[in-house]
């Protein structure tokens, strides 16, 4: 399972659990995320302000803040 985890300083993504609904992509206020092959991907982690909107509304618990 760990092989499908994307770990950054600010966000962690578990691609195994992501169903590609796009909710986190849409409600991210800094446009940090995108969908690629129906999975969430980080476009620009430097823009992430760790507001937690993605984690709050991810129905699949596939994206969350690191260190919070």
């Amino acid at each position: 399972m760990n092989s499908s985890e994307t770990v950054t300083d600010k966000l962690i993504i578990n691609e195994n659990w992501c169903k590609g609904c796009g909710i986190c992509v849409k409600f991210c206020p800094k446009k940090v995320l995108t969908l690629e092959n129906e999975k969430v991907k980080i476009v620009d982690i430097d823009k992430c302000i760790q507001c937690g909107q993605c984690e709050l509304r991810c129905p699949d618990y596939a994206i969350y803040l690191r260190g919070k």
Partner: protein
Amino acid sequence: MPSAVVDKFFRTNKLPQIWCPGCGHGIITRAITVAVEKLGFDRDKICVVSGIGCSSRATGYLDFDTLHTTHGRALPFATGVKLANPDMKVIVITGDGDCTAIGGNHLIHACRRNIGITTIVFNNNIYGMTGGQYSPTTPKFDKGTTAPYGNIDKAFDISNLAASAGATYVGRSTAYHTNLLISLIENGLKNDGFSLIEAISSCPTYYGRKNKKGDAVNMLEWQKDHAVNISAASKMTPESLEGKFLIGEFKNSPEPEYTSEYQKIIDRFNKE
């Protein structure tokens, strides 16, 4: 390794859950665990009971003492749990069909008794699991697989139904308004009597597709655009409230709780 709250309160070996991509139920289920975490309740003193339906799958994923019961009968099972264990916090997870159609009578009587149960209704306006039949909360003229020309029944307003029937804490929020939802669940759990939190969910697969509401993202945006907080609504004109629905705390009026009243009778006879 999932997030701390998911790791603590979910049976992570059962994840990913079975719900469709973008289903609001996953958001609401997590919101319940965040509320429990904020309150710092002892997990061993919480029992989560569900009925049948998409929403009721939640008990399979939550790592508490859980009961997945029969259709519409989550509240009777929960009543038994509460009467046998009055110190336990009992949470019922149910859907609009399970709670207000199959279990409708149980709902109004649980409200009337003011028994210490916090009921969270995942309202997605449709029977999702069985294939998109219209439910008691499908809006009038909206479609379901059993209402291909539009549903001609009026929809139940679950929050006002519960408040009228005697629930002592009632609130409504949406999957989009997650932080409000978490705070309503917290307040509901703090109330000793019967609390009902109506969580407006979204079903992109059936209700959304049948009624051309778009995808999961569009449905959350609809919630964002059409929900008005009850405190703001009092200052708005009827015209500006046209087509909107209210969210927020609808009722907070504590009254003596059922199992404590029951105990008083037991104590009276024990003295004699």
